[in-house]
């Protein structure tokens, strides 16, 4: 190999062992230090429900729950999540904690292509666990980092609003 720079190979080769609890299951994987959490989730763990839209924290497509709070998986290296509890759209769906949100999004067609939807749901879930009675303004504000090219947002706001009200009526969060 002519002119080959060995140090490049060394860097790319080096991996780190990371452990976390993903969707309730303990997982260990070997990742390159430069690998972001969104890439690890999507490529290594095949949790493709988490999407990447901008890779710079501007679109919200990659939101996941990390130790119970919504974070941008594109802004974290996988190694930074070592030891954390991570819940993605797949886990939140299985556990049923967002079933009412999903049903209301469906009923009102608060999604078209669906690419923004997992991030929207993670953020809506976060909002409703922090604020029980959000105004429409609060909802729009909470979603201000979630980009959707398809819907025009109104149905998403309506769906979250309806779920917030339904949860209050049924006596607190489900």
């Amino acid at each position, binding site marked *: 190999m002519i002119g080959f720079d060995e140090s490049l190979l060394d860097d790319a080769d080096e991996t780190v062992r990371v452990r976390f609890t993903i969707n309730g299951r303990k997982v260990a994987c070997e990742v390159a230090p430069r690998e972001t959490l969104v890439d690890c989730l999507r490529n290594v763990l095949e949790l493709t429900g988490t999407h990447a839209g901008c890779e710079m924290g501007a679109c919200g497509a990659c939101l996941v729950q990390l130790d119970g709070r919504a974070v941008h998986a594109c802004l974290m290296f996988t190694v930074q999540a070592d030891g954390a509890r991570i819940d993605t759209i797949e886990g939140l769906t299985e556990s049923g904690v967002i079933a009412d949100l999903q049903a209301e999004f469906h009923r009102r067609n608060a999604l078209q292509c669906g690419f923004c939807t997992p991030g929207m749901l993670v953020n809506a879930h976060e909002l409703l666990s922090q604020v029980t009675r959000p105004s429409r303004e609060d909802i729009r504000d909470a979603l201000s980092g979630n980009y959707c090219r398809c819907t*025009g947002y*109104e149905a*998403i706001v309506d769906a979250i609003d309806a779920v917030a009200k339904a949860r209050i009526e049924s006596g607190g969060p489900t």
Partner: protein
Amino acid sequence: MSAPLTSLDRPNSYIGRSVPRPNAKRLLAGRGRYVSDLRLPRMLYAAFVRSPHSHAKIISIDAGRASALEGVHLVATGADLAKICTPWTGTLDHFKGMTSAPQLPLPLDRVVWAGQAVVAVVAESRAIAEDALELIEIDYEDLPIVADIDSAREAGGPLINPGSANNVCFRSQLDNGSVDDAFAHAAHVVEEEFCFGRHTAVTLEPRAIIADYDPAAGALTVHHATQTPYQFQDLYSRHYGLPEARVRVIATDIGGSFGMKLHVYHEDMAVVGLSILLGRPVKYVADRIESFVSDIQARDHRVRARMALDGKGEIQAMDVLDLTGIGAFSSYPRTSVVEGNQVIRLIGAPYRFKNYRATLEVIFQNKVQTSQYRAVGHPIACAVTERLVDMAAVKVGLDPFAIRAQNLIADDAYPQTSPTGYRFEALSHQACLKRLHEMMDYDALRSEQAELRKGGVYRGIGIAAFVEITNPSPAFYGVGGARISSQDGAIVSLTPSGEVRCLISVTEQGQGTEAIISQIVADQLGVAQEHVKVITGDTEVTPHGGATWACRGAGIGGETALQATRALRRNILEIAALILQEQPSALDIIDGEVVDAGTRNQRMPVSEIARIAYFRSDTLPPGTQAQLTVSQHFAPQGYPFAFTNGIQGCSLEVDVETGFIKMLKHFIVEDCGRVINPMLVDEQLRGGIVQGLGAALFEECRYSETGQLVNGSLADYLVPMPMEMPDIVIAHIETPTADTELGAKGCGEAGTAAASACVLNAVNDALTPFDATINSIPITPSKVLKALKRF
């Protein structure tokens, strides 16, 4: 107002009902299968070196170190791919005299925009491919840059395509009636120059493609995030010399398209070639920065327009010059001149005047290509027309509603032919105008505006009428020689258990194609919607058709499904009649049961007919061959396009200190003919309006003088976000087209068509007390402050 009752309004009809989309549940559970999610065995990943120059000669390429990097399988240049791929040219015959240079996947000796892909690397991971890009050395020699419309038109200035006489791609002229005469005798003339910046689709999922060539079978499978799989099957087959039947294009879930993903991209063509060279699947997903520099952009017009009116405020004539910059090539296979062509043909479309003249000049520059994106040409035509109408209203002393009531074509005056040659079957401008007036509570808005002005709060009210082009016939592309179908095909089967499967050529991008097709099939056959499975987007499975563009899914795809289902129903009833010893005409199907047509008494389940036909054909009369699979194609005939119409209104507030504009409320009255699923239509309108508001207020691809895009990231390029967007109030008028049984027209572009015109008028209305005007889009805070002379 809704359409009169017809055979479509059967009891329990699904047509006209807001049923949710069955396929949306997967997406809500994070179980979408987007091309960016797919991974195939032995798959490799492509990345591209991009040109840092907007115009330069390629002197040399040194890829030695990149090829040697572990994990790299191939480094390919333009010359490598040119050996297996034939060039393409983005022209169409019906645009007389248009020119464009031949294109190849990667350039041979010259780059023509900053961001153009130059060299491809294929490696075991995208990360390794990107590492290898860093090791490739390319020597360029700068060439003179043609960065804007003015420098491109300078006589004797630099040329983008060597050997051409100038930088003009296409010129077109329309001249109807006696325009000069009308202006000479006009009581009032209004005139303005308008600028429309470039913006781009910014689909949340960037472009994604996996090409998988199997040399043993000589077969190519492409998983392509596109609206138009058949078009790409044809193109990959012809440009790579593969038999059409050996090329399969699968368009699965797609994270937004809006017209952007139906053009040929150099990288996508390259990926097909790379897979052929390697005999392995190759994946390419654009990252966000790559999207900004290589996705098609849209608009980029400078329009000079004037309007003549008589003393009473009757529009007499319009005279228009549209200059539009399209990049260094015309895009393929739909060209980059359709937008300009639609601009000059849609201007003035809602109004009654007859004297019209327009010149269109489509100009090359060293930028990425512009081409069809949602509402092609419409926002430009609408903004120019509606702004001039508002300016005229001020001059004549009429209210914006009054001048429109006076000039909009009467609803009972159709059919009409516009001075630009478009034939309108039946539109409802006057009914829409009236409805908007009530819906906005216009008089109350005006008094509130006057009241607030006294306290230094500047609100604006704007309205804008529009015409939308939908259901295109072959007049759109076919006549120009493009192998883009205007027909659609459907195959409908009764399955052995009595359920229904419909394979159809229209595709799904989240607008609800599969939902409305299953509504139509369920409705027309007489079964429950949950027993209908719709399959789209796979050239090996679904029949050939135009797929989804220019708002044709419901109008053309829906009619295809309707006719195929009616044929299947006839066949089912024929078998039922044999079994029941009845006349087919005495039977009907309701809710999965064959019933007596008169009494509705149940006779036998449809599933029983399926069972007998598939498994006990021996019990049918001799000679009976049950045909429980039916295929049907449908191409629009009659009017070349099904035009729709509507009107939008908005109320907003301008902060005259900061220049910020706050959208308060948006309204639309829309007429897309028969509404199949009102909820899905409303969501198309809302989504379309918000895209239009983005263009009106925020979105602009900004370029430096050297042709470099300076805001190519989602942090710098502003898109509409939830906080800034208003709630949108919607009403419908229904004027079905008589060209089809279904009567449906399109609705996907109506929102985008008039949103920016509406905002432009509202902002100018808000600025009235300051004698300030704005005629440039997007209307950024700095433009507002400049107009107010505060910046």
